[in-house]
Structure formats: structure tokens, C-alpha cells
């Protein structure tokens, strides 16, 4: 029998989709039964009370969580988010209900014993409720009390070789795609770069001094499986410098129907025979492909890395061999000014493990310095770029403007030149001028 009546929440279970309410009820019941004889370190009825306080919020039409708090593990300014209920007497199980963020393994590769260990720890010292994964990509453990925080942190770091993730005005837990571990399209080793920058920027990850959150995300190719271009203040998207590799025999096999397009992903319905013109050539955004006399040709200079042809004919086409990455900056979700996609800052940079990714860090650090000095409180990098202009960003990073920075011809005819940008400066010889132009 449920501890709290939840008629409004119950309604949510009646829809056609799986419901988080059902999951919570299942967990509440499992904790009450305690078949594994866990010595719970926080109230057994934590999940019942969570359902109760949520129901109350639905009745009242307002939240019953207080805003933030002073909790954390010693020396860390992120990774723990204080959550306190403003009705602790009514719902003592969630009087403290802190969130912990755990850095996810690179590419989200788990072993089952790792997950079991993590869940056992969370059943023992927390509510057992998790959010796999938060939008930043990290593992979110929902609901524990203040005295448990250091204990959990000790277990994670000493027994599981695992760190807390980022929260608050920090570098957030960097996230990457599975990369070269399983994907032939990855143009660089996403996991190595993600791991290395996570290690090198521990101070930024754990000790908040930024104006607001800052996200790194690493995509191995322009398919952007972790959506870095849409979500990361700084997106590292794999690309290639040379030509798309073409296997002409495989192209022919697609055309003749011997190989199914899109890795046979659309096998659920008969879409008719494969039509290379309709399904590939005509869909190329820059129209840089042609298929004549059984031969596919690509004008690689015009390719914008949309990946469509490669996705449709993966056996025939592959990214070039000279891999690297593009850096885009300023993407964010829509809190202020609406959502913003990343803007291309560096079209191509070598991904050089041997140098400790020096070339990439040389872009990251000036951006941070600029944002830390110029950014207003709670201003994302993308908003600062909008306020100050892309030119200010280029100056901060020391990058010259280039055609790849331009998405369309100017619709504003005014250009403000600085004196040092004009040959000879603003000073002029008035006598020489008057010889050519009478008063």
C-alpha cells in the first residue's frame, strides 16, 4: 500500500508511454520489501515521499524544492547539487534530497559489474533512483542526505576509480561519442581527447570560477551523434582534409541492388529499387557529385561534410584518411535569446596526441580567459559572442577572419576598421590630398 495517495501522478501512468511514476512506485515497493537486506543509510521511504511531494506540487501548482544549497565534498565546487524540500515535516524522507553527478565513462562504455557496483552503492547510500544519462551526458544519482556525500565520494574514487562530474559554473563533464572504438567514420580518437582534456582541466571541472556553465563535447565525425554542434559551448567535430574515399565496385553494387542502402536500416518497408540520383546525388547540398558511365565522381572542394552520401552508401564511401577536427563555439539551449547553434571558429586542426593536444588547448584557453574577463554573471559564451561580436572573439583567440567564418554575404554594409588594419593608418598628407581634390 502506497504511503501517500497520488491521484494526479497516477493519471500520468495512463498514457501510452512508459511512465517515470511507475518506475518510482516500483522502486518505492522494492525498498519497502528490501529483499536483498540492504542496510539503507537514508530513509527507506525516500521514494514514497518523493512521490508525495511531487503530488503536492501538482496540487499547489508550485514547487516544494528550495533553490540550491551549500553541500559538496571537500574541495569540490561541483558534482553535488543541494536539494532541500520545503515541507520536511510532511515528507521527512526527502528533507535532504541531494543530486550527485558522476562522470560517465568515455563513450559510455560500461561493464555490467561497474553498473552493478554503482547501483549497489546508490541503493545503500542513496534513493536508488538514477538518471542515465543527464543531458550533459553524465550519470545522475538522485537523492541522498548530506552525511552520505563524503562516504559516496570515497567509495567512488577509491574503489571504483571514478570521479564526480561537473555542475554549477564549472566545466561540465566532457562528453564524447564512441569514436574509433567502434565507428569507422570517427576522424580522430574522441575518447582519448575527451579523457585527456578532462584530466588536464580538473581545476576548471571541480572549482567554479566561470561566469556560468561551460560544455565540451566531442564528435568523431560530422554526423554529430552527441549533438555537440547544438549543445556544447565548445564542440569538437571530426572532419577530414583530403578526399572522400570511393570504392567504385561497391557503388555499382548499391546501384545494382546487391547491397542495401543505409546499412539496411530501412528494411521495414519496401521502398523500391535504390535510385542513386534521387537518394544521393540530388540530395547533396552543394550538388558536387555525379554518376556517369558507372563511375561516381565527387568535387571534394565543394563538399560541406553533410555526411549524407556516406550514410547512404557506407560500404562505398568513407571519410578521407587525413583526419582532424573542426572547433565550433557558442551553442546553447534556449534560456536566453533562444537556442543557438555553434559557430565555426577553427575549420581544421590536427589532433596530435604526441603534443598533448597543444594546438587544441591553444584555442580553448584564450577563449576561457576572454569569457572570464568579459562575460557577465550567468552569461554563456554564445551570448557573449552575440553581445561583443564574432570579431571580438577572433581577436581574443588570435585567429584571422577567413571565408569559412562567413555563412552568407553581409546584409549590413558598414565595416568598422581599426587604424592598425588600414594601410598607412588614419593619418593622411592633407597637401597631397588637396592636390587631387580641390576644396
Amino acid at each position, binding site marked *: 500500500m502506497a504511503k501517500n495517495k497520488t491521484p494526479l501522478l497516477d493519471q500520468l501512468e495512463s498514457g501510452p508511454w512508459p511512465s517515470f511514476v511507475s518506475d518510482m512506485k516500483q522502486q518505492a515497493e522494492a525498498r519497502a520489501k528490501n529483499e536483498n537486506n540492504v542496510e539503507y543509510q537514508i530513509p527507506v521511504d525516500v521514494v514514497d515521499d518523493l512521490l508525495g511531494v511531487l503530488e503536492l506540487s501538482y496540487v499547489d501548482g508550485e514547487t516544494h524544492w*528550495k*533553490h*540550491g*544549497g*551549500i*553541500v*559538496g565534498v571537500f*574541495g*569540490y*565546487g*561541483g558534482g*553535488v*547539487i*543541494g536539494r*532541500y524540500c520545503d515541507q520536511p515535516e510532511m515528507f521527512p524522507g526527502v528533507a*535532504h534530497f541531494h*543530486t550527485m553527478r558522476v562522470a560517465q565513462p568515455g563513450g559510455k562504455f560500461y561493464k555490467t559489474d561497474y553498473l552493478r557496483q554503482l547501483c549497489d552503492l546508490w541503493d545503500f547510500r542513496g534513493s536508488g533512483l538514477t538518471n542515465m544519462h543527464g543531458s550533459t551526458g553524465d550519470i545522475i544519482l538522485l537523492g541522498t542526505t*548530506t552525511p552520505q556525500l563524503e562516504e559516496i565520494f570515497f567509495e567512488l574514487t577509491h574503489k571504483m576509480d571514478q570521479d564526480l562530474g561537473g*555542475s*554549477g*559554473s*564549472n566545466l561540465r563533464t566532457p562528453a564524447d561519442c564512441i569514436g574509433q572504438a567502434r565507428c569507422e567514420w570517427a576522424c580522430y580518437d574522441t575518447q582519448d581527447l575527451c579523457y585527456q582534456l578532462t584530466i588536464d582541466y580538473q*581545476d576548471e571541472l571541480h*572549482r*567554479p*570560477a*566561470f*561566469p*556560468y*556553465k561551460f560544455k565540451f563535447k566531442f564528435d568523431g565525425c560530422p554526423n554529430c551523434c552527441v549533438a555537440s554542434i547544438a549543445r556544447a559551448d565548445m564542440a569538437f567535430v571530426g572532419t577530414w582534409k583530403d578526399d572522400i574515399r570511393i570504392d567504385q565496385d561497391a557503388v555499382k553494387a548499391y546501384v545494382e541492388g546487391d547491397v542495401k542502402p543505409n546499412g539496411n536500416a530501412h528494411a521495414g518497408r519496401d521502398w523500391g529499387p535504390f535510385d542513386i540520383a534521387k537518394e544521393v546525388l540530388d540530395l547533396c547540398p552543394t550538388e558536387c557529385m555525379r554518376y556517369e558511365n558507372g563511375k561516381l565522381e565527387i568535387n571534394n572542394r565543394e563538399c560541406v561534410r553533410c555526411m549524407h552520401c556516406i550514410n547512404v552508401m557506407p560500404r562505398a564511401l568513407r571519410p578521407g584518411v587525413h583526419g582532424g577536427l573542426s572547433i565550433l563555439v557558442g551553442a546553447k539551449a534556449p534560456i536566453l535569446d533562444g537556442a543557438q547553434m555553434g559557430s565555426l571558429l577553427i575549420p581544421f586542426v590536427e589532433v596530435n596526441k604526441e603534443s598533448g593536444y597543444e594546438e587544441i588547448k591553444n584555442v580553448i584557453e584564450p577563449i576561457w*580567459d576572454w569569457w*572570464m*574577463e568579459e562575460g557577465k*554573471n*550567468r552569461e554563456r559564451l554564445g551570448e557573449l559572442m552575440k553581445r561583443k561580436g564574432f570579431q571580438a572573439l577572433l581577436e581574443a583567440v588570435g585567429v584571422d577572419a577567413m571565408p569559412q567564418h562567413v555563412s552568407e554575404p553581409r546584409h549590413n554594409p558598414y565595416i568598422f576598421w581599426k587604424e592598425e588594419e588600414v594601410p598607412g593608418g588614419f593619418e593622411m598628407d592633407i597637401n597631397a590630398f588637396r592636390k587631387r581634390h580641390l576644396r
Partner: protein
Amino acid sequence: MEYEEQKQLIVDTLKKKEKTKSKWYFSDLAKILDLKPREAKKIVTKMVEEEVLVFWSSGSTSMYGLKGAGKQSAAEHEEG
């Protein structure tokens, strides 16, 4: 300025406004110290290590406060 003086400057400034303001942005502290952010961070981090300052987090934004200052500590049944 030596570290002890910088620490005192922050403590004095924060104490003076304690009644009306208990949480400060990092940029406020950098301004008090009149230092560039990277330099200010070293001082502030040390003060957190010495438990003079504490972190406050809403989850999305982080702030700093004197340990024990403000309503939050009492309201949350925290010590100190």
C-alpha cells in the same frame, strides 16, 4: 598584496555586507581583490581549502559565501 591581506580584504568586505548579501559571484570576489580571474581563483580556492569560504550551488550557477553566513545554513540544519 600578501595572501593574508587578500584574505582579510575579502572577509572584511563580505562581513560588512553580511546582513543584506550572503552569496557572491566569483566575479565579485575578483573585483574585490582587483585581480584577473586566474589570479583571483588561486586566492579564492585557498580560502575554500581553509574553510573560510564555502561554495553555494543552485545546480546551474555557483556562488561563494563566508562559512556559516546567511539564512541557508540554519534553514538547512547544517552545522556552522
